């Protein structure tokens, strides 16, 4: 790798990180806006000004919360104080591995699907420990609800990873994305099914984190919100990139394709945000997440079955 290529790669990575941090709160706001649309405006069309205000609001809220006085419980230890910022850092590291609009970034060699999933899980575990820090029963139980409710989604997640591996021959993101460039149609369908299973498992596992923030205030709450938004963005980028790898530009050889990649990234993320907002109401229905988990497992089983059937037919 020449020096120019290295510099280009570093610039791409920095741009990717800046975009992720900038877009994450707006993604959350977009999802909130879409989710609130039917209640706010039952008979009128959504206005552009309303959307712009909604997109600005999370940043204003972030600044307002950061300026507040941090309040900790009397018996809180360093675990509770450090948990939100550590969770943000771990999620940011995971987000750095997921390609947003470019393939071939310097972190591309580190991007492995199980490692990314483990990092996202680690961030949740840190938040969970932070919530259990003061030992109060109410917040503790509410916090434990998030990881325990995510357990039913685990089979779907694992089967999705297995399906992607069987269809592409690896779990490295670069390999998974490159596998879409060619291959038999059966493999492409299996990859798509596995990607759907991954997305459904992410929805089933990741929508119950409200209990983790029950005792947070001020800057800690701001960091929790940022972490939550970053995690959602990383998931959306991951799933949409796997579903539509052609939308990603490459770092080399021609940076002139970057704007096109940026445009398509915006389309992917917006579509993901709108979808997230659209299903949010449904996700609040009791039992909906369990149904999602089962659907994820079903899609996850379908992908290897399709590949096996194809192999038997050959």
């Amino acid at each position: 790798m020449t020096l120019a290529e290295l510099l280009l790669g570093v610039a791409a990575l920095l741009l990717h990180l800046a975009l992720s941090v900038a877009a994450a709160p707006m993604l959350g706001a977009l999802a909130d806006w879409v989710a609130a649309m039917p209640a706010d405006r039952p008979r009128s069309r959504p206005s552009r000004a309303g959307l712009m205000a909604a997109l600005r609001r999370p940043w204003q809220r972030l600044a307002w919360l950061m300026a507040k006085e941090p309040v900790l419980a009397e018996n809180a230890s360093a675990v509770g104080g450090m948990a939100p910022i550590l969770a943000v850092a771990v999620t940011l590291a995971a987000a750095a591995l997921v390609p947003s609009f470019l393939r071939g970034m310097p972190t591309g060699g580190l991007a492995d699907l199980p490692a990314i999933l483990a990092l996202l899980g680690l961030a949740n575990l840190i938040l969970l420990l932070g919530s259990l820090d003061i030992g109060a029963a109410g917040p503790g139980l509410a916090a434990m609800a998030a990881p325990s409710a995510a357990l039913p989604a685990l089979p779907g997640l694992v089967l999705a990873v297995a399906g992607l591996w069987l269809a592409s021959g690896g779990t490295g993101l670069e390999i998974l994305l490159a596998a879409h460039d060619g291959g038999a149609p059966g493999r492409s369908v299996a990859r798509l099914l596995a990607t759907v299973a991954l997305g459904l498992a992410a929805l089933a596992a990741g929508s119950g984190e409200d209990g983790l923030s029950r005792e947070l205030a001020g800057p800690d709450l701001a960091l929790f919100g940022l972490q939550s938004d970053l995690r959602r963005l990383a998931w959306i980028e991951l799933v949409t990139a796997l579903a539509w790898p052609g939308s990603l530009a490459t770092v080399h050889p021609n940076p002139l394709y970057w704007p096109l990649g940026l445009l398509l990234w915006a389309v992917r993320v917006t579509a993901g945000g709108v979808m997230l907002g659209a299903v949010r109401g449904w996700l609040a229905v009791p039992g909906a997440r369990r149904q999602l988990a089962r659907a994820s497992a079903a899609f996850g089983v379908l992908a290897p079955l399709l590949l096996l059937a194809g192999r038997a037919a050959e």
Partner: protein
Amino acid sequence: MDVSLLVLVGLLLVLMGVLAAKAMRRRAGIVAGVGASLCALALLAGARGAALPVPIGLAGGGGALQLDGLSALFLFLSFLVAAFAEAEPLCLVATCLAMLAGDLVLLAAAAALALLALPPQGLGRRPGRLRTMAAGGLVGACALLGGVAAPAGALLPETGFSLVRDGVATLGREAAVLLPVLVLLGVAPLLGLWPLAAWHRRLCGTAPPWAAALASLLGLFLLLRLLLGLAGSAPAAGWGYGLAALGIASALAAAVGALRAQTLRGAVARLLAVQNGLAVLGVGICLLARTDDLPGLAAAALDAVLLLLPTQVLAGLAMLTLAAGMEEEAGASLLARLGGLVQSMPRATALAAVAVAMLAFLPPVGGFPALWLLLQSTLAVARVAPVPALLAMVAAAVAVALSGLAWVRLVAVAGLGRPRTPRGAAAQEIGGRLGRTVAAMLVLPGLIGLLPGVWLRLLRSVGAGLAAGVDADPPPLLHLVVPGGGATLSPLALAVLLLVAIGGCLLLGRRLAVRPERRAPAWQQGSAPPPPWLPFGDPLTQIGPATLVRMVGRQAGPAGWPGLSRMRPRRLRAMLAAPEAVGAWLLAALRRHGAVLALALLAGLLASRGA
């Protein structure tokens, strides 16, 4: 002269030194440290299987002590355990002799002696029977291997390893069924495998911390030596599936048990058994790959076991040591009476958090690279046997997730929150020397987690000896690569990325947080202030070990999956208890009719050989 032979002689002197130190009532830790250094030297020199004849063994056998890669690795870890935790010399020497054995008679005798020397001596009925059964199973497995390897017409069996390996080229059907059963009867109690885990739980719960570490090392060594090293050249088709199923069942049962455990060391015992279950899964995949002639997959699965080993043993030893210290200081072993230790024992809690991070497979270092390689190996099995591999992956993932939640429960209930007893509130920090020792225990697993390639390159002689047909390319130093090249894991680079992210976030957070923090009373959901006779608060307003379990059970259990919701709890309990009952029946039968069974076994073997 060969370096391995010199090291072998040196190790014998070290073992004598350990016994002499005991006789002179001196600390044997330094001597054990010398032993560990010698083993490290042997590993660096690529231990080539140097042998030293000894007048032990049957006529015609090659009775010998030998030092190959596998022995050197396990001896290295055993001496490290002894150096850190002052192991009982007799138990250490017997364990080391079993690892140095180059002859089945010596192996059986030393393993049986080590089992009998393991504390605690005053066992209850069931753990005591398990110990006897384990010794019987190991002796039986060695006898079976010797008998199978004996040349036709020979009066006495062959016992030297090199001759046994040649003799066991083709196992009969009966021997192929009996051998893994006997080996597993021998090692399952040592590793805490389901459903024979009672002795392992007792070892972790009441014996000194080194006992559980030595038991795990001995169990894994015997499993690798007998099934992979000696009989692994001709594994039967079902061995791999059977071992993998047993490993997963053990990991799942131990993870569920850890979530429900009432005592601190009881929970740690079950969580260490999860690790052992995953190691057995790795050995099963290795055997499966050998049966299907997939040397790359066999090497990857074995690498996963070799990566898991130091984390399980040394981080587990650190965790057990800290748990024992915490129980002693807080004056309670029940989780419901522990709490808030992060306030009174911050150093011990911080060290425990590091050990937990390694044992709970948290990325990017510690046990995570081993788990990642095990996952990749299981994925690779999906090409050969898709349905079992997918089921194994899901079950293993659930076991790992449950064990992660159990670790969180352990840390949250014992370390966080408020103290629950006066003695817990007055608990004192562990001593500086103990703290440094525990920190030293965690150094090697940490380094191996960061640079797994260096460890695997050091252990190439082990891989070459056990995973036949392994390719000649040395593993890369800085990252793990799966055989097909479909995935790469770079723990060091990931750790650097995480450190940069954490550093940047801390720096930015400090800049942006403009006001100093304020402490305020925590809201207790409207409960009245605790009365004077509840100085540590109302227990109903605090999290406890049972509340967290109930939450996980409610959310992820029957409600999460419809099939489970139709199952009555009583029926579920009966299903879970059935294997335990079978194990108890087997023990009782062995106790009552052991001689008859042994004779029947011998007659069956002779008949099969005659046929």
